[in-house]
């Protein structure tokens, strides 16, 4: 099911009564989420992404704007009539019910022509449990399951009634690091197998990049960029997106464009034809550095971390916003640790320029 948000806005009354005006959690959002995709709603905590999820689920009513599921306007529809599945951050499994009872719970609510017999319910529950590979644990109570298993019960409960849209709120945040890797693959697999349009909220860009077909980056309730993960990473539309995506994070420098050349400190490090003379931010991905004796970008070397398949070179530069400057270098290159200064040449497509005031991208 396609999900379309039109001009979607949600304001909350300010909790601090002294301050006037409302808090805008979601700010005029326009987006089309294609059918059958796994979509990540990515942003730092407090950016309104959970509010967004609640708007789509119907637990919250928007202040302005509309929500469509395909052709249907569901803006005013209560959550139970939207036919969605929702997985809560803390799973919200009913502690007094067994896994099976938890999974069949949504089915027992069906009325009229959708009403199922006991056998059908058990059949459907078993199918869902199989899908999340929990069919051996049907009689357990949630407290007897591990965090990862609980999470899968929550997913099974959400998909058992074949929702049009599946929503997941921070599905991995309560799991430890190892389980997280495993579970995100699991989510990917389940989404592929069911083909349900799935939207999940996360603040972890790595999580979002690794499994989703499309990511939506938001901050302070506003939409910043939408696209395939690699596109967003390679072609960020503004400084926030560039900084938010990628580990290790992008290196940001104060820079200047003069006569078609990019200056960082005193060095003219790159040709940037066609860019007007402006003070800019130059953001360079860690993998955008090539150690080069004749390179034009020099930094003070402070250390090298060996990571096996590559190593990262740490150096400092007075123009950098967050020293040290981190460059990831393949092991083919050699860096002399004894030297005080390291020189780089840059890969132009890994260097992004942003307007100093608006932080918008300047393309070259």
């Amino acid at each position, binding site marked *: 099911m396609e999900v379309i948000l039109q001009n979607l806005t949600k304001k909350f009354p300010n909790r601090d009564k002294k301050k006037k005006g409302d808090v805008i959690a979601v700010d005029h959002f326009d987006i089309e989420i294609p059918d059958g995709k796994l979509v990540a709603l990515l942003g730092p905590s407090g950016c309104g992404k959970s509010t967004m999820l609640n708007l789509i689920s119907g637990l919250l009513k928007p202040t302005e704007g509309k929500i469509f599921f395909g052709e249907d306007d569901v803006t005013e529809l*209560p959550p139970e009539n939207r036919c969605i599945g929702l997985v809560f951050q*803390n799973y919200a499994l009913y502690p007094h019910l067994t896994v099976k009872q938890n999974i069949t719970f949504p089915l027992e609510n069906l009325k009229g022509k959708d009403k199922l017999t006991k056998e059908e319910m058990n059949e459907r529950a078993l199918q869902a449990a199989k899908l999340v590979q929990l069919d051996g644990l049907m009689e357990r109570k949630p407290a007897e399951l591990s965090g990862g298993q609980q999470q899968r019960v929550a997913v099974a409960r959400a998909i058992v009634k074949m929702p049009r849209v599946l929503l997941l709120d921070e599905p991995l945040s309560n799991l430890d690091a190892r389980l997280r890797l495993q579970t995100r693959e699991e989510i990917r697999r389940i989404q592929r197998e069911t083909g349900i349009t799935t939207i999940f909220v996360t603040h972890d860009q790595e999580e979002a990049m690794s499994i989703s077909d499309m990511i939506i980056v938001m901050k302070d309730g506003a939409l910043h960029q939408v696209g395939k993960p690699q596109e967003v990473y390679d072609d960020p539309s503004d400084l926030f997106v560039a900084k938010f995506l990628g580990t290790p994070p992008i290196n940001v420098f104060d820079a200047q464009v003069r006569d078609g050349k990019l200056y960082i400190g005193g060095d003219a490090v790159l040709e940037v034809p066609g860019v007007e003379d402006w003070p800019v931010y130059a953001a360079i991905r860690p993998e955008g550095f090539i150690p080069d004796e004749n390179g034009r970008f020099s930094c003070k070397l402070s250390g090298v971390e060996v990571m096996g398949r590559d190593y990262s070179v740490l150096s400092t530069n007075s123009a950098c916003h967050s020293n040290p400057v981190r460059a990831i270098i393949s092991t083919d290159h050699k860096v002399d640790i004894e030297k005080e200064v390291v020189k780089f040449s840059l890969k132009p497509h890994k260097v992004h320029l942003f307007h100093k005031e608006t932080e918008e991208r300047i393309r070259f």
Partner: protein
Amino acid sequence: MLKKLNESGMKAWLYLLPAILFLGVFMVYPLIDVFIYSFEEGYNSASQTFFGVGLYNYDYVLHDPYFLQALKNTFILVIITVPLSTTIALLISVGLSSIEKVRDWFQTIYFLPYVTNTLAVGLVFMILFKKTAYSDGLINMFIRWFGGNSVDFIDGPYWAKMFVLCLYTIWVVMPFKILILTSALASVNQDYYNAARVDGTSRFRIFRRITLPMISPMIFYLIITGFIGAFKAYSDAVALFGTNLNAAEMNTIVGYVYDMLYGDSGGYPSFASAAAIILFTIVLTITCINLLISKKKVHY
């Protein structure tokens, strides 16, 4: 080092001394003593002598028509008020937690009976239900409006008196139950309700399948304390029917204990002790049964 520990040990006992002294004199000693009393036959409080040791006191109490009356009254009171007050409190608490406006006001009002003097407000109930030569009283006025015959609820038939007693008891115990249940309801994670709503669960089903099991420990706590409290009923009855409860046929077990101890019918601490021990055997048994059931039914 050893000396220091000793010193601090001594000091600790010094801090504990007042508490131990008071508890020893007014709790531990009486607890032992009440059993001794209950077995001393023919104890005379003036001369502090007794004839022998045995079960005569229990035998006497169990055959005393006043005690049997008190026993019957107490059981009826317990059986009516505990389930009824718990159910109404549950309904009210669910109602309270589903509204936002003026909720604080309701909560404040509902709590008022807790801070009022049982004896004093009992008088108000008495005049509301009493029928005198001058007036039928307010409640009878309502009964008349609806075409019934007026009844004297205070000096009239047994069922009428029992009705007022139960009503007043419920009125008095309600604040505590509402308070406990509203905070139990508030502590249920909102996500459970949201999850159920997304699945299209009806309100009634949410209540029966989620809310009720989630707060079942608190409900059982209230039922257990409710049983204990109702078995110890006394001052509510005094407030409505005066101190001579035997004459009003409205005595309770605790009332019987005090009547044996003091007042016109008093001076028999042995009988009082036996009655008190019988009461607590009953309470203990019922509490144990309650705990057993709750172990089976409560989901945590």
